[in-house]
């Protein structure tokens, strides 16, 4: 491995280094500009812990929902022979190109208490989704699930289908094959997709502030807290950003070590 690193050709090395600088320098900026002397009081301000906890809980729930719905969806896209598959794939990846604020408005129009489905829910049960923590999870899931679907679909396509064929030959039905053969085969891809999905959900802003609103303790996640802090006290915003950055980096590094291992590189994001 080491021998290959030494021989990175200049046409790849130079842009790669520029890429690293471009992605990392803004983070350096945050660290340099941070009011380090003022860190203690800033961190213990009311609401910081609350926003962080809400962010972590809602991003994790959004990832769980995305796994439950997204893995089967990825399988349908990669393995089934239903007609209109490419159209279906284009449709489910729309949230990737949709501005998140538009996603938030669209969620209102369907799940709001005047929305297509939400109105019925509100009139029959009195329940209304917007401005609740559940709405945060819904908004984050809407924006983040396509990342998981694309990752898992890529892993499924890259996986060797002959193992599944062999399982079928030995009498396993498709559900058993999926559980016992396919899923273990693409597990690294699923894990990589879940991490990507979680990270996207953690940083979600536009759909959340539109559909779930902004209220401390209920719907104010870290990105919303950062945005509002920026308007009154940029130092507080920088501290909040650093906290979010540190927590997400720590989580990603930890997960990478424990779950993804070396297989993630092969079966991961295609």
């Amino acid at each position, binding site marked *: 491995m080491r021998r290959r690193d030494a021989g990175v050709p200049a046409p790849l090395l130079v842009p790669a280094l520029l890429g690293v600088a471009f992605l990392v320098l803004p983070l350096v900026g945050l660290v340099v500009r941070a009011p380090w002397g003022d860190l203690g009081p800033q961190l213990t301000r009311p609401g910081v812990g609350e926003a962080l906890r809400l962010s972590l809980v809602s991003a994790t729930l959004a990832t769980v929902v995305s796994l439950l719905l997204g893995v089967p969806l990825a399988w349908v896209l990669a393995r089934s022979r239903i007609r209109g598959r490419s159209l279906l794939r284009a449709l489910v990846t729309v949230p990737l190109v949709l501005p998140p604020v538009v996603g938030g408005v669209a969620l*209102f*129009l369907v799940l*709001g*208490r*005047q929305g297509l489905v939400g109105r019925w829910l509100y009139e029959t049960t009195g329940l*209304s989704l*917007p*401005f609740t923590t559940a709405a945060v999870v819904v908004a984050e899931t809407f924006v983040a699930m396509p990342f998981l679907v694309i990752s898992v679909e890529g892993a499924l396509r890259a996986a060797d289908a002959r193992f599944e064929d062999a399982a079928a030959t030995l009498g396993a039905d498709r559900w058993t094959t999926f559980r016992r053969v396919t899923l273990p085969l693409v597990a690294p891809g699923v894990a990589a997709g879940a991490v990507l999905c979680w990270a996207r959900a953690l940083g979600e802003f536009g759909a959340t*502030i*539109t559909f*779930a*609103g*902004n*209220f*401390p303790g*209920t*719907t*104010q996640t870290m990105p919303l807290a950062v*945005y*509002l*802090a*920026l*308007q*009154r006290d*940029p130092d507080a915003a920088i501290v909040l950003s650093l906290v979010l950055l540190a927590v997400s980096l720590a989580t990603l590094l930890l997960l990478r070590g424990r779950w993804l291992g070396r297989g993630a590189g092969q079966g991961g994001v295609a």
Partner: protein
Amino acid sequence: MRRRFAAAAVAVLALAGCGSGDDGADDELSGTVTVFAAASLTDVFTDLGARLEDDHPGLAVRFNFAGSSALAAQLTQGAPADVYASADTDQMDVVTNDELVSRAPTLFATNTLEIAVPPGNPGGITDLADLADPARTIALCAAEVPCGAATEEVFDAAGLTAAPDTLEEDVRAALTKVQLGEVDAALVYRTDVQAAGDAVEGIEFPEAADAVNGYAICTLTAAPNPAGALAFVQLVTSEAGQDALAAAGFARP
């Protein structure tokens, strides 16, 4: 409140001094004027911009409408703009304190809060006390933006504790939640209620008089188009501009 009126008095004095600078109005104006303006000015400023473009065919007026505090933050971070118009003097102070203003700000309008409810008033809102009712779904402006600061003042004056379900990042975002029918009420400016037409109903309340927002406008030191900037400010403070503001529901300073 006292600080607001003090600032208002200063600004009115500044208005007198404003015209005495170099008068670029006779020159043929061209290029682009970029105006950063409070969200509540969206409709009336868009009209005034179109009027200025009609008077000066070579001139294009571009707007960035957002919460005054978001705009002030963008300006202090070096956003290129010619004119800044804020919905309260506190946010104008942020910009003047950073010495970004090329001439003293002018107070050009005032605004008060009003309750906005969806058509038919499904939440049965009658006065400010209903916005302190946790059972209802209420949108208020976040304390960081001018309408939120005014909101805190009216609730303080009324001795009520607000019961919002969401704290919106600017006044138009709060209005949108009413227009979509997703909240029972929001506290917005009376001009927003007027601009929304039939999409919302307005309910006036006496405590609104306790928080009068002063709107200030200024040209910026870093203005790429100083002549155009001055022309826009002069239009806003002119009789025609004041009439347009009055028609939109703003009061004179």
